[in-house]
C-alpha cells in the first residue's frame, strides 16, 4: 500500500506527477524566471532547475502579493508547476491557486519536505486532503 499523507483540503483538481522537493520557500516574483520556467534566484535551493509540470514540494510561501496574478499568467502559457505542495502557505498563494485553477495543498501532520523526495511520483487530491506517494524514485 503506497504511503498516504494527510493534509488540509486544498484548491484545484486532483493531479499525478513527479515531485521536485526542497527545504526552501516560494514566491513567483522573488524566485522564478517565469519565461524560462526555472528557479532564478541564485540563493534558492532549486536555482537553475525547471519547475514546468513538476509537483513542487516546499516549506512556506514568502514575500509579496504578485504571485496571486502570476500563477494564472504562468498557467495560461503552460509554463507552470503541475501542483504546489507546501507545509504552510499564505493567503497570496491560496488566492493565486484559486484564480489559476492550480492544484495546491498545505498543512500536513509533519514536515512534507521530509516525506516526499525529488523524483517520487505523487498524486495530490485537494478535495480529499491527501497526497499519495504512488512510486518512490529509486534512482
Amino acid at each position, binding site marked *: 500500500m503506497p504511503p498516504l499523507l494527510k493534509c*488540509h*483540503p*486544498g*484548491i484545484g483538481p486532483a493531479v499525478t506527477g513527479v515531485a521536485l522537493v526542497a527545504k526552501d*520557500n516560494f*514566491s513567483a*516574483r*522573488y*524566485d*522564478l*524566471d517565469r519565461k524560462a520556467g526555472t528557479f*532564478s*534566484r*541564485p*540563493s534558492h535551493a532549486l536555482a537553475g532547475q525547471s519547475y514546468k509540470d513538476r509537483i513542487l514540494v516546499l516549506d*512556506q*510561501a*514568502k*514575500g*509579496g*502579493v*504578485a*504571485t*496571486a*496574478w*502570476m500563477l*494564472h*499568467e504562468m*498557467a*495560461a*502559457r503552460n509554463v507552470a508547476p503541475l501542483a504546489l505542495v507546501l507545509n*504552510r502557505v*499564505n*493567503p*497570496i498563494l*491560496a*488566492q*493565486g491557486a*484559486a*484564480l489559476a485553477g492550480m492544484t495546491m495543498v498545505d498543512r500536513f501532520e509533519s514536515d512534507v519536505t521530509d516525506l516526499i523526495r525529488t523524483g517520487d511520483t505523487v498524486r495530490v487530491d485537494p478535495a480529499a486532503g491527501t497526497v499519495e506517494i504512488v512510486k518512490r524514485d529509486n534512482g
Partner: protein
Amino acid sequence: MQLNDEERAMLAGEYGEARRWAIEHQIQVGDFFDAADFVPVSQAHIMADTESLGEAGVAFLERLAALPESERRVRVPTITDPRGLDFAVYKRLGQTDAMAALEARAIAAFRAFGVLMTDTCINYQTILPPVRGEHLAMGDTGVVIYSNSVFGARSNFEGGPSALAAGLTGRTPRYGYHLDAARRPTHRFRVTAAPRDLSEWGALGGIVGRECGSYWTVPLVEGIETPPGSDALKHFGAAMASYGSVALFHMSGVTPEPAECAAAAAAIGRAEIDAFLASYEAKGDKVDVVVFAAPQLSLIEMAEVAEALDGRHVHADTTLLVATSPEIKSAADRMGLTARIEASGAMVAAGICFYQSYAGELAAANGWTRLLTNSAKLTNIIGGYGYKPTLASLARCVDSAVAGRIV
C-alpha cells in the same frame, strides 16, 4: 462558509457575472483558511502591475470590465498599488511600447470597474489612512503590515484578484488578521541598537522578518525608546513583510494594540544590523542603477533626495531613479523638488515602484547588474531578476551615484 441571503444571491449570479466570480473566488479562499463567514470591508487596494498580470491577466480583467455598468462597478472605495509603467518616463527607462499598450488596457479595465487609480503603495501616508479596528482588503504587503501594525486596522495580504473581488462584493472572508486570536505575538525581539537611518530600519525589519519566516507569525519588538516616525516604520514593516511574509508586528510603546509575549526575547544589536548590511556590501564596484523606491517616497524623502543632489551630477554611466506616488509627484513638482532632483540627471517616476516595472527587462535593456538602494525590501526582491543589490544610506547612495561606483 456561512453565507447570508445577499451573499447567496451573489453566488447564484443575481448580481451579475463579476460579483458571482468574485464571491466564488472568495469562498474558495475562505474555505481553504476555514473562515466562518464574511466581514464587510471599507476599502480595497489592488496590486495589478502588468508584468504580474501578463496578457492572460489583462484579458481576464477585460472580460469582467465588458459587463453592464451595474454589474461591474465596485461597491466600496477601491484604489490601486503602483502600476508597471509611467507613461512620462517609460521610453527613457528602456520599457517598450508593447508594455505601454498592455498597461493602457489594464487601466481602461480598472476605470470601467470604478476603481480610483491612485497607483501607490504609500496610501496610508497619502490617500486615506485606516483607523483602528477597520476591516480592509489591502493588496500590498507593505500596506498591510503598516495598516495592521501602526494603525491597528485589520487586513490579510489580498492579492490583486482577491482585492478586486473584495471591491466587487464589499467584503472579505473572515480569517487570519481579521480575528483577535491571530493578532497575538508569537515571537519576541529586543532591539539594543537604534537604527540610524531608513536603510537600517529596513535592515532591522529584514532581520526580524527572516527570523519569523512565516505569514502566521507575529513579532513583538521591544527596546525602541523613541517613536521612529512614519518613513522609518514604513521601511521597517515593508522589509519585514518582504523577508518574512509577516503581516503584523507590535512595537512596545509605539503601536496601539496591547501585546504581551512570554517567549524568550532574541536580541538584535549593532552587530546584527552591520552583518545584514555587510552581506550585500560591494564597496568599489561600478554601480549601474541607484533606486529610491519600494516603498514609494514620501514628500519628506523627496526633499531629502533633492537636498543630497543639489549642485551635483549623476555619473554618466549610472542611472538614478526615484519613484513616488502621483500625489507626491504633484507636490514635488509644485515645490520645485522634482526640478532639483532632475537637474542632477536623475529621473523621477510617478505611480511605479521599480520592482513591479519589468525589472528583468529593464536590466537587459540597460545593461544593469549592480543596483544600489536604501530599501531593504528592494534588496530582497531584486536578486531573482538578475541584479546584484547593495543596501546603503540615502547619503551614500547619492555619493555613489555621483561617483559611478560604490563609495
